[in-house]
């Protein structure tokens, strides 16, 4: 009687999907996608728009996912006709700021996929910020030339 049904439903749903961590406060992961790659590819790229809705800056210090051996954050650049990638030591999101993971810029390196991915498949990736982590669902889509 004192507990509204909707709250109870939420509680139950929460218990079912019970993550062992709290979300990174304010972090939203939008338009998360993986370009479809050859089935033999041992690395996939992950793109998304990361938004910090909170009043505090956020630092993402690690990313991982059950479908991948490991996940790294990279910066791509084209300098003097050279294509370069460099690992990043985490990502900083200022309060009410955002960071784009996009083609030709920053991306997730989704390394050693445990199975091939086809357009239409999805994979959950975790963004860690200290003791918290936010789960995001990445959808595989055909790459656009």
């Amino acid at each position, binding site marked *: 009687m004192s507990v509204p049904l909707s709250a109870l439903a939420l509680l139950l749903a929460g218990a079912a999907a019970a993550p062992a961590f709290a979300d990174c406060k304010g972090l939203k992961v939008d338009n998360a996608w993986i370009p479809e790659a050859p*089935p*033999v590819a041992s690395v996939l790229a992950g793109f998304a728009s990361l938004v910090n809705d909170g009043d505090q800056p956020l630092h993402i210090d690690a990313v991982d996912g059950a479908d991948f051996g490991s996940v790294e954050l990279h910066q*791509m650049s084209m300098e003097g*006709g*050279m294509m*370069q990638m460099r690992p990043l030591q985490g990502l900083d999101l200022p309060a009410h700021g955002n960071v784009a993971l996009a083609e*030709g810029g920053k991306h997730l390196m989704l390394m050693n996929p445990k199975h091939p991915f086809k357009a239409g498949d999805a994979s959950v990736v975790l963004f860690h910020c200290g003791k918290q982590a936010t789960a995001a669902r990445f959808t595989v889509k055909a790459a*656009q030339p």
Partner: protein
Amino acid sequence: MSNRLLSWGLLAGFAVLIGIVAGLVVLRPASVQIQSGTLLQQARPIADFSLNGSDGKPFTKADLAGHWSVIYVGYTHCPDVCPTTLAQLKAVEKGLGEDAGKIRFIFLSIDPERDTPEALGQYTHYFSPDFLAVTGPNAQLDVLGANLGFVYAKVPGATPQSYLMDHSSALILINPRAGLAGYLTPPFKTDALVSDLKQLVEKSW
């Protein structure tokens, strides 16, 4: 008698001269203007090299003769720009229609440590079964790089296995006499690449 000989000689001389001039006009690469990059004033010869094709056969300078070639230098542990470029070359191949048969698209991996010819072939043929996949020992890649003007470098990554490769981003144009003809430079536009390559195969050599 000697007069007639002289006029025959003059005529022959003229014929040779006309032939040379015609040859220059036909062969001169500068008569072709491309939008996606630059053509060398004169194609540059390439030294012999020996790489490995994904079909298990050696890939040598002889494989570059008799048709135009477009070489893309990259590696498969490059998930952003490399697959995007290969997908774009697939679109270019489609846009070329019948002319596509006159051009070989070659994905050249500068990461032989991780890209075995077989895996490289499977990766490349996902984009087009007609693309060639080639790699080889670093010593041979270096010889070819010096000849074609591409460079690459291994850069340590977060782990020993996740090292990175810096590499030149231009597409390399090779003419049917296996000479370095020029470069196509990013950002690539499919339509421009198609019209440039059509010009090359139709208007020169």
